[in-house]
């Protein structure tokens, strides 16, 4: 039983970590639990498939000589390698399970992504409604200053951008506030989610 749980745990944890790097969900955004539920479904699906793989390999007598705990860990990690496995490449197309796995992954990610966009929209609107423009500017500037992962150049670039947004004469204030709110809440760095 422990081996099954380990296989599921490894596959589920890696699947979750992959999604966590891609989707930015503001802490207090409305709809965040719906997003987390959708992410949980994909994690559970992968964990379930890892359990099925474990059962299949055990039934077929694979890895019989290995300790069950180690076998569980190996199958959990092996499941993730197997779904990305390429037997050969023809016309730059991989022959293996990768295509079907990517199809399922894209479908799940697209659904989660739509909910994330809507949740971020709502969170941005709420922040804009409750915060004056000057305070948004100060928070956006602090956000760029306090980003420990950013280089000095990236911090200056972010500040320069904040300044350009303030001085964008051809844009209404509400639109400028929305952009700054998204920067504050998502912490999006240039070129990265």
């Amino acid at each position, binding site marked *: 039983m422990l081996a099954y749980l380990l296989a599921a745990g490894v596959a589920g944890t890696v699947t979750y970590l992959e999604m966590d790097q891609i989707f930015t969900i503001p802490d207090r955004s409305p709809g965040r639990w719906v997003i987390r539920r959708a992410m949980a479904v994909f994690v559970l699906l992968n964990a379930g498939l890892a359990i099925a793989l474990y059962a299949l390999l055990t039934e077929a007598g694979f890895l019989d000589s290995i300790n069950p705990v180690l076998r569980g860990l190996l199958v959990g990690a092996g499941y993730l390698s197997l779904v990305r496995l390429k037997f050969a490449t023809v016309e730059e197309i991989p022959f293996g399970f990768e295509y079907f796995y990517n199809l399922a992954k894209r479908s799940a990610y697209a659904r989660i992504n739509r909910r994330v966009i809507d949740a971020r929209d709502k969170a941005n609107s709420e922040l804009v409604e409750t915060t004056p423009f000057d305070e948004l500017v100060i928070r956006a500037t602090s956000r760029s200053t306090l980003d420990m992962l950013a280089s000095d150049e990236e911090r200056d670039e972010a500040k320069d951008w*904040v300044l350009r947004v303030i001085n964008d004469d051809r844009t209404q204030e509400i639109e400028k506030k929305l952009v700054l709110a998204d920067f504050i809440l998502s912490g999006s760095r240039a070129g990265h989610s």
Partner: protein
Amino acid sequence: MLSEFNVLIGGAIGGLVSGVVALALNRRELRRAARLREEGHEELAWEQHQSPELATNLLVLEVVGDEIETSAVDVAVRARLTPTELRSAIDGLREAALIEFPNSNRIKLTEAGRSVLERHKLAFEEVVAQRPRDERQVAQNSEDLDLAIQDAVQTLRARHAH
């Protein structure tokens, strides 16, 4: 009773079927991309015509292409563009059928847009370096930027006080 042989054969057949389906769909995408090229949708050519505007367009394509779908606000933040700069880029890219709007707050690349992006493959930094900037607004160093932002905040407060 399953045997190791059965599992291996099952895996091989699964992989083969997956590859054949992927190959067929890829050929269909290639035909569609070729048709779009013939129709003249691919208007961006960095090698022939480098300009700040084109750099901005490619930057927007790159940021949009990073996601399955994204929002205009997110593109503005990640590409470090002002709403005006983004609007201008989006208008051009939409006209060239390189991006599309599945609904009012979502943007995604079209097949033609993906094809243009793949052909260029410019490093993000290179595109950023070519981005148009208003020289009057670009301060020289971090301290200048902080001072300029403080001034802007004071102006906003004064404007709201009136």
